[in-house]
């Protein structure tokens, strides 16, 4: 259990450092950086490399936004296995749905109860 925390910290931290280098060295905007990271996550899963990373680092790999790309691919592939090509379309949000719906729901609740502080 302890090594899991350690590696979650290290891998999550390293993915963040990669993002920071995109900000500071390549001078990308946050939106460009995050988009790049999800694309990388999707491609890594295409090569079957992201799942081992999750096995190894747990939340260190599932919490960074790269896992969004990974789980989109994963959902699509899972569904495609059962239903063929159409599954690529229909299965896309199968796994990711919780993050998306949480963001929408909490975003709206946030707007109901909070005001920006400036």
């Amino acid at each position, binding site marked *: 259990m302890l090594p899991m*925390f350690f590696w*979650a*910290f*290290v891998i*999550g*931290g*390293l*993915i*963040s*450092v*990669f*993002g*920071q*280098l995109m*900000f*500071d*060295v390549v001078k990308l905007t*946050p*939106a460009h950086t*995050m*988009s790049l990271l999800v*694309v990388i*996550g*999707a*491609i890594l*899963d*295409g090569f079957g490399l992201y799942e081992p990373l999750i096995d190894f*680092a*747990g*939340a*260190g790999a599932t*919490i*960074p*936004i*790269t896992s*969004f*790309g990974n789980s*989109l*691919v994963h959902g*699509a*592939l899972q569904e495609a296995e059962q239903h063929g*090509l159409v599954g*690529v*379309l229909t299965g*896309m949000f199968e*796994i990711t749905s*919780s*993050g*998306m719906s*949480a*963001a929408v729901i*909490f*975003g*709206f609740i*946030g*707007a109901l109860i*909070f*005001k*920006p*502080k400036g």
Partner: protein
Amino acid sequence: MGKKKNLTPVQQQYQQLEQKHEIKRPVWKNCLNAFWVGGLICAVGQAITYFYIYFFDFTEQTAGNPTVATMIFISMLLTGFGVYDHIGQFGGAGSAVPVTGFGNSVIAAAIEHRTEGFVLGVGGNMFKLAGSVILFGVFAAFIVALIKTLWTMMGVL
């Protein structure tokens, strides 16, 4: 950046002069902060994952979903109480890359545009920052999954 070529000599000369006075981004410090802030957020995520594994019927595989939802909930509170933007200034990518940063971008936009009403303001602007992440995530995933499925079908893999 690649546009430098199009500058006139006067512009180039000026930019050299201006560069001297520009305060450089503290890349090392930023990376260090990003590392430990990002790492810490992931470690918190790991703790939440274990919480769901121990106290509920979630496996390592299935605990990811409630963990993400919980993290976004925490992100909503931190955003709403005006804390997340300060964490962001300090942690940089460390607080932007984890899913809490995704949540923050959605929630901050939603809160900000409340004054324009719930339909046109909150509804219309909620994804103005996170939209590109969703677009490129979905499109890249589509291409990757399509290629892989086609390969499998043609028996390459």
